[in-house]
């Protein structure tokens, strides 16, 4: 067995894998025990594990049992393909429930994904070859399914504008009468200033503005998604708001070339709108 394990580890290392022989043995054992009905040669599996192992990721972190069934699928093992198809159908259904995909679209996606996953095309290898085991296979299938569904659902629809204009509209609600007047007078300048101000915010800040203004996320949700305390999230949001306000002020002053006092009064108006919107966003409980 020791000699055999030697050869298996050699295959793993030859394919670019780094890791302990004992860990490899444990992973191999776990995989074969989880899938007794599959028969992937140990050297073949070890070599695939090695090839797929992402740089900087420990072999212990790899879901070897999932990689095992993926390799079996590539090797055209019927039992493995049936098993993966079952998981796929379930994940497509769950992903579809979160989109507006029609039944026909879901059926199309399920069929096309089967090709994408299992079949090598001249320009694109089977997607199961790219699966490293860093996340579980179920999640991998879910990601691919969700992406495809979003693509199919959005096809034929006007390109969804995720650029800054809708963010501007949220920060400056057009329905506000005060601001309507301001915008009527200074529209181009105000909008251009705000766009430029937004352009000076970094990616994190823009994401925060987007999530809070457009998606209406609460501080709690921002904190949870970024894995920080709600107090930190609240501080981030407050900081980006202040930064945005300052940038708008600078940009407006530069564009209007008017007295600072006048800019200030305009700013106050704009700022008051931002504050109102932020109050809504920052609804912080006791």
């Amino acid at each position: 067995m020791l000699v055999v394990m030697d050869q298996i580890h050699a295959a793993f290392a030859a394919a670019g894998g780094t890791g302990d022989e004992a860990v490899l043995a444990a992973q191999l054992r776990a995989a074969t025990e989880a899938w007794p009905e599959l028969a992937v040669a140990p050297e073949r599996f070890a070599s695939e594990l090695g090839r797929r192992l992402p740089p900087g990721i420990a072999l212990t972190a790899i879901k070897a049992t999932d990689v095992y069934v993926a390799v079996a699928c590539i090797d055209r093992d019927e039992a493995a393909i049936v098993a993966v198809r079952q998981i796929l159908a379930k994940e497509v259904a769950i992903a579809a429930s979160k989109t507006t995909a029609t039944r026909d679209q879901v059926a199309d996606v399920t069929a096309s994904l089967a090709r994408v996953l299992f079949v090598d095309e001249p320009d694109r290898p089977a997607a199961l070859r790219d699966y490293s085991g860093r996340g579980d296979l179920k999640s991998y299938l879910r990601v691919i399914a969700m992406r495809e569904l979003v693509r199919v659902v959005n096809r034929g629809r006007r390109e969804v504008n995720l650029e800054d204009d809708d963010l501007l509209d949220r920060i400056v609600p057009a329905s506000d009468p005060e601001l309507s007047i301001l915008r009527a007078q200074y529209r181009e300048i105000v909008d251009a200033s705000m766009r430029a101000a937004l352009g000076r915010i970094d990616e994190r800040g823009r994401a925060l503005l987007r999530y809070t203004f457009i998606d209406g996320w609460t501080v709690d949700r921002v904190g949870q998604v970024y894995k920080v305390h709600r107090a930190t999230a609240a501080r981030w949001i407050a900081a980006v708001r202040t930064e945005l306000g300052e940038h708008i002020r600078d940009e407006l002053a530069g564009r209007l070339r008017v007295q600072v006092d006048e800019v200030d009064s305009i700013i106050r108006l704009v700022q008051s709108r931002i504050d109102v919107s932020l109050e809504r966003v920052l609804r912080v409980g006791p």
Partner: protein
Amino acid sequence: MTCPDADTLAALANLDDVERAVLVDHAATCDSCRAVVLDLLEVTRAETEPSTGEVDPAMIDRYRIERRIGAGAMGVVFAAYDPELARPVAVKVLRAGGSPVRMRREAQSLAKLTHPNVVAVYDVGEHAGSTFVTMALVDGENLRSWLGGQRTTAQIVDAITQAARGVDAAHRAGIVHRDLKPDNIFVARTGEVLVGDFGLARSGIDPRAAGNKLADGSELTRTGGVVGTPAYMAPEQLDGDASAASDQFALCVTAWEALYGTRPFTGRTFDELALAAVDGVPPEPRTRKVPARVRDAIRRGLAADPELRHPSLAALLAALAPRRRRWPYVAAGTGVVIAAVTGMAVASRDKPAPSCDVQALAPWRPDARFTAAKPAIVAAIQRITGRYAADWKSLAHGSCVAHARRQLSDPALTGSRR
């Protein structure tokens, strides 16, 4: 940044915080990654933290979640939007613990019930392993916060009456509420009162088995199980026996609290609460003048013995309603009977209500060691002696009243007439 590959995204749950935050930043402006990232964060939550509800979902079924409007022992409530029917809704995601099949069945039967005083149920389904119920979103506040404003007795009686109508309609449809309290009764901006959260509190979990302490006698939220709110629960419901009669009791506790600002029964444990109810309804606080018919109707609904309460919510409603002088309109053929009845009614109206505050039998309280060693036996004995005490008290009370009215029985029999 360019979109990360599927393999990286699939490992989202295992990514370190920096990598994860970069992905979340990216998802803010990338439609397809955003769907994937939000989807996966939700999956991760559902699988690793079943019921803490860490991240609010963006969608539940077809409903777009807008904000969290409440959370409690039973679950989380969101204000949401139904894009299909283009209307705002409330979505309540129930904590695991109860039987989803039964919850579904009850929600389904409630969905068939349309009544102006019942929060309409639109839909029921499954989301990430939990049952959710979609309901009308009431534009208003709950009774508890409504009571925070100064309300007149008439306003409160009207609100309770409307709530009772809603509960009555549900009872007629065979639905028991199980968790009536000021927090589950809503006062719309338009003035209608609606009862919500029907039947959702049933857990099949014996409240006594899961620990016997009340935090402060007010609201008990217990992790794991879903229970009614003990302060509003009838003694028999504390034993796990919810019925239309226990709803009546809870509604009367609510009415009492609404009128007087305190609850009729207090206790630090389930047993203390049950015993307080068995001890009898205390005298009404003098904080507010309440019409005698309302006082009496509420007192009767608070009887420890369900048999002694109003036979139905409809009967409670009738007792709450202002009396109309119906007698003169009754056909003349039954004149004799009517004369007798009116005579009695007039007589009892004229005479002040007899003071018959019967002293309750002291409840049986075994010593702590025995209670600790044999909790089941103690509970059983307390139930039996409690029922006996209630019977005795109502007999004694009846006898005292009869004596006062008709000077028949011997006051020494009860020893309590003042």
